[in-house]
């Protein structure tokens, strides 16, 4: 049972990354691969500040700022230098690997015996339950903030940017600026996931971000399938489904491990699972038509 609780907690940690991918992929229609780098960056910044005994309240802003910077960089390369978004993301992600490594000075930084988010706040005595309430609180705050943002005039303009660029430009929006802000926001959220996971698992590793984008993509795709299925137009409900997607995704992985699938095959299982989710709506659609 503990196994599934951990999966649930990881799912909550990955909610931020899922929301980030939702913003870059669904709202801005940009495939952003910076994720792998900015996620690790979030973990790296957290680990360095924690091990240097910096006050907790500056760590989160620092992580958000670092992630936003990485995203903004991808945005600037994409919009100002007119480079394909996918390539821009790959460039920044690649560069971030070296940046992360030199920041840490080594490939792994343990966070044992440092006070983290999960040891500072004590709501429940059981560490897993404690983590659950902290993460839940965290995720609710983030979701409320993003949900509010998307409802504002700025948020509507954001959503229109990925939808009809000619329209939104004729309505007085600088789409380049909007995309840079959007990617900054998406990667800031991604970095927050790195921040949470590092403290949750108790270490930051240089390779923790490899292939992490699939976690976000998988979550968003699960959400999208549900959104299309139930014809959901509400912004709030969509966000909740993205969070649900992140948790389902982790639970599926937990089930796979639980039934005895070799851990080495986990990435393969992940890929196949995402493939199934993506193709599911099309398969059922064919049957009905």
């Amino acid at each position, binding site marked *: 049972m503990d196994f599934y609780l951990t999966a649930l907690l990881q799912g909550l940690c990955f909610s931020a990354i899922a929301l980030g991918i939702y913003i870059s992929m669904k709202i801005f229609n940009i495939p952003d691969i910076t994720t792998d780098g900015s996620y690790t960056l979030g973990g790296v910044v957290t680990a360095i500040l924690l091990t240097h005994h910096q006050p907790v309240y500056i760590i989160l802003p620092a992580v958000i700022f670092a992630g936003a910077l990485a995203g903004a960089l991808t945005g600037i390369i994409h919009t100002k230098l007119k480079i394909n978004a996918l390539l821009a993301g790959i460039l920044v992600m690649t560069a971030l690997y070296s940046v992360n490594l030199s920041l840490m000075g080594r490939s792994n930084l343990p966070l044992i015996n440092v006070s983290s988010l999960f040891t500072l706040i004590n709501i429940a005595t059981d560490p897993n339950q404690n983590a659950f309430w902290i993460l839940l609180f965290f995720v609710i705050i983030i979701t409320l903030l993003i949900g509010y943002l998307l409802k*504002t*005039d700025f948020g*509507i303009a954001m959503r*229109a940017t990925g939808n*009809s660029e000619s*329209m*939104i430009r004729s*309505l007085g929006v600088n789409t380049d600026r909007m995309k840079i802000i959007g990617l900054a926001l998406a990667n800031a959220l991604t970095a927050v996931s790195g921040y949470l996971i590092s403290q949750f698992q108790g270490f930051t590793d240089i390779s923790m971000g490899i292939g992490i984008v699939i976690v976000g993509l998988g979550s968003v795709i699960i959400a999208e399938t549900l959104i299309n299925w139930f014809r959901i137009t509400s912004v709030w409900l969509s966000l909740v489904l993205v969070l649900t997607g992140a948790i389902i995704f982790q639970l599926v992985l937990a089930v796979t491990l639980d039934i005895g699938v070799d851990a080495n095959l986990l990435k393969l299982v992940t890929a196949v699972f995402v493939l199934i989710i993506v193709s599911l709506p099309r398969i059922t659609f064919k049957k009905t038509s």
Partner: protein
Amino acid sequence: MIDLINVHKIFNPGKANQVNAVNGINLNIKREEFLVIVGANGSGKTTLLDMIAGSILPNSGSIHIDGKDVTKIPGYQRSRWIARVFQSPLSGTASDLSILDNFRLAAIRTKPKGLSIGVNETFKNQVKEKISTLGMGLENKIEQPMGTLSGGQRQALTLLMSVMDNCKVLLLDEPTAALDPRSAEIVMRTADELIKDYKLTATLITHNLKDAFNYGNRIILMGEGSIIKDINAAEKQVLKQNDLFDWFA
């Protein structure tokens, strides 16, 4: 209201596929003038309109709107004066957003898009009232995504959206090209009414010579990037529809 002085636009200069889209056009569009532009494909009509809107910048020459030199000002900043209706209904509206959200953006076209929620009950009623003037029954569907509407409905709404905020210039680039005759007529009539009611300066590109004849108070014929004919209001009064057809013969 709009002044174009010796405006040139050359695509791919110096290359084998160089196109001289607009060759030194001088054009003055007066306040509240409704200018109709006709001309064959490739005559530079759309390029001209794009340069007024700012989505294309000219190679040389200058453009003034309302007395201000806007030659170097990017398109999104010219939205202070200009509203546009595009040829494709997809370009003028955001499909995935609700009608309401589309109207909200249009209502703050000339203003910054801030971090406050602007869609409230007052605004909803205001939009419903505006939309009901179309008589299409869309006022009860404002929460629906724009993508669920037909091309004609979307073009009509795009027109309404253009007057949601302070608008001086309305640019219409073949707004009815993708529509059936009935929808096209509704859209053109709506456009004409709005232009009169809001005292707009308007420019319409059309291939429909009947529309060119029926609407507007000035008409120009373009060919190979230049203005070939310029018919003012008085001359347009005596112009016959057949004369227009003869231009293309």
